[in-house]
């Protein structure tokens, strides 16, 4: 069906296949489950880093491995589908953020947080205990980025650690004296918030697709009353409702990536005046809103159709659904995104032409 396929599409398809194969080899249910104990899967991380996949989307001059946002987005969605127990999406976002600010990307796993103020302690930072944290903030002196490696922390270490429902580390990181603070272009903090939302949405999109795939397989294999569950109209109705949400999340995240990618660029990076661009802000908000909203619906139907077996520790479904339940609340729950987007919509409604010019992205 690749009628409109360009060379760039072909490269992306090849990349997607490479990532999916690598992740499929490593992210077996037993290894993903085991990683929740140690915090992550170091062997998987090494394999990803060796192939340059952890810094796609960031230019080579900054220490990245090149490629565009679409490449990075494809990798993040694949990580979500595989339930990869590593901060892959976080590292991709951090690399882009550092590169945008003209900073060199340090080696190893990275993570991003938005800080309210400079001396703040950042709550629930993904993989904070083992990744270099890139914190973005803005204040009277303008926007800034702080970089703090795990070894440089002035804390005793494990006090503020936590986990999400999937066992992924969510740790306190203090922006203490050891953090290097750099002035960053205006809009950097907003850009960081948007990248976090976008990459979280992509993780959800991948996981939602995986939940659907697992469920489709299950209802074809599992027989009751002498025939596969897939033959029962009530089951079909629920499966289709689930597919609708999955498709909606896919459409929304795809469009948000496109909106972000279409921002004006300078030297392959978003131009400074594009960092806070309204269209991309709304697109990413809408994508996260629908990803978070749909995540709960998808997880609920997946479990209902799997029956009791899906709720057990030994079944792989929970590796996906616990992530959906966690990720929907991270980087902006649907309630938060609905409210923010709703305020923007009501603001737009006072303009000539009402809501439509804003909603259609063509004022």
């Amino acid at each position: 069906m690749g009628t409109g396929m360009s060379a760039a599409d072909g490269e992306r398809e090849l990349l997607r296949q490479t990532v999916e194969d690598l992740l499929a080899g490593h992210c077996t249910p037993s290894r993903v489950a085991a990683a929740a104990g140690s915090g992550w899967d170091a062997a998987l991380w090494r394999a990803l880093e060796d192939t340059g996949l952890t810094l796609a989307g960031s230019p080579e001059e900054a220490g990245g491995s090149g490629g565009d946002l679409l490449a990075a987005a494809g990798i993040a969605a694949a990580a979500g589908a595989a339930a990869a127990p590593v901060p892959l999406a976080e590292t991709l976002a951090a690399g882009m953020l550092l590169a945008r600010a003209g900073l060199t990307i340090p080696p190893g796993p990275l993570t991003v947080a938005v800080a309210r103020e400079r001396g703040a302690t950042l709550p629930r930072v993904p993989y904070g205990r083992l990744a270099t944290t890139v914190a973005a903030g803005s204040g009277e002196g303008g926007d800034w980025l702080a970089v703090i490696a795990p070894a440089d922390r002035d804390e005793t270490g494990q006090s503020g650690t936590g986990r999400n429902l999937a066992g992924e580390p969510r740790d306190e990181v203090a922006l203490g004296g050891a953090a290097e603070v750099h002035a960053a272009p205006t809009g950097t903090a907003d850009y960081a918030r948007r990248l976090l939302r976008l990459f979280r949405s992509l993780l959800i999109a991948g996981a939602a697709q995986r939940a659907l795939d697992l469920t489709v397989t299950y209802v074809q294999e599992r027989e009751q009353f002498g025939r596969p569950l897939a033959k029962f109209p009530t089951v079909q109705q629920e499966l289709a409702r689930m597919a609708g949400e999955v498709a909606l999340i896919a459409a929304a995240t795809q469009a948000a990536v496109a909106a972000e990618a279409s921002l004006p660029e300078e030297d392959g990076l978003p131009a400074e005046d594009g960092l806070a661009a309204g269209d991309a802000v709304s697109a990413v908000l809408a994508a996260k809103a629908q990803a978070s909203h749909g995540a709960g619906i998808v997880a609920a139907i997946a479990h209902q159709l799997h029956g009791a077996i899906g709720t057990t520790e030994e079944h792989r479904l929970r590796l996906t659904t616990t992530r959906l339940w966690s990720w929907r609340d991270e980087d902006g729950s649907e309630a938060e995104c609905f409210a923010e987007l709703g305020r923007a919509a009501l603001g737009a409604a006072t303009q000539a032409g009402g809501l439509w010019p804003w909603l259609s992205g063509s004022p």
Partner: protein
Amino acid sequence: MRSGTLLPPVRPWPATAAGLRSEVREFLAAERAAGRFIPACDAWLSGWDESFSRRLGDRGWVGMTIPAEYGGHGRSALERYVVVEELLAAGAPVAAHWVSDRQVGPNLLRYGSEVLKQRYLPAIAQGACYFAIGLSEPDAGSDLAAVRTTGTRVDGGWTVSGTKVWTSGAHRAHALIALLRTGPPDGRQRHVGLSQLLIELDQPGVTIRPIISMTGEHHFNEVVLGDVFVPDEQVVGTIGDGWAQVTSELAYERSGPERLLSTFVLLDALAGELASRAGDADAARAVGRVVSRLWAGRQMSLAVAGALADGEAPEIAAALVKDVGTRLENEIIEVARMLTAAVPDPEGAGMAGLLAQAVLHAPGFTLRGGTNEILRGIVARGLALR
């Protein structure tokens, strides 16, 4: 395990899209200012205005994808999408030419004989030729292959007898595009022996009776065909291929912006009313909920439109657009009811009138074009077969 996405990628807008959009908006603003139409919910079903259709035709905005040699404009499917969604978002009266523009034109381009193309396409592009769809029958609703209207072979054509129902606009349309049985089913293969014929409505043997909706409006009809002669040249495509032809049309019918925007005018009015309450968190959240869903649903619809334009057949995605979109059209009504003090009044202005239109039209959203339950069955079977 088979993995993959449900959706084709969204294609970029053509370079002409932005300019075209502005032109349509200017035209619509002028029409509204001149009092030529009042924005209404579900106006693609209820807003029959032949002079409006002709003015659109004059602008080149009907039958846009029809090539110039047949009186059309050779524009792309996505350019048509721009025009159509602008018209729908404005609640403009597009019902008269709706079926001609959305499906009969493309259908004739794909399957029609040279005679049929010459006969109908130029008038369609002028916004002056209107069609009704003859699919449903008294005993063939969701079970479309159960149609009993028959065409019997006679010298030079077919004699058609049977009854079609829910034929929107048949009392004003020029012709009916009908699915009927021209041959026996092949055992249990009921899709065999069905054909598509274009039947002129102003001729002996055609009786059209109104079916009045609960709004009091007259859109639907019962069309009784009593030994109506239809010449061979009015056969669309190939005798016996009717089922395949009709189902290939359905992807267009199910995935267009009309499956999302039937109540957009109500949402727009609501947002206008609430604009002064932007600090009201409940209002913002409720509006944000439907707005984000509408935005995402539009991206789904666009993804399917782009794939269709490239000759792909994304049937599952098309069915999903209709299921998600029409449920959203209903959700918008519920959000409006929660947030406005207005109550539905068919004679009321503003919110009251729009609410009345929306509430009374709403049951149709998830029925027309294949009920959502039937569509979900198609989706589920498609997923299992992937």
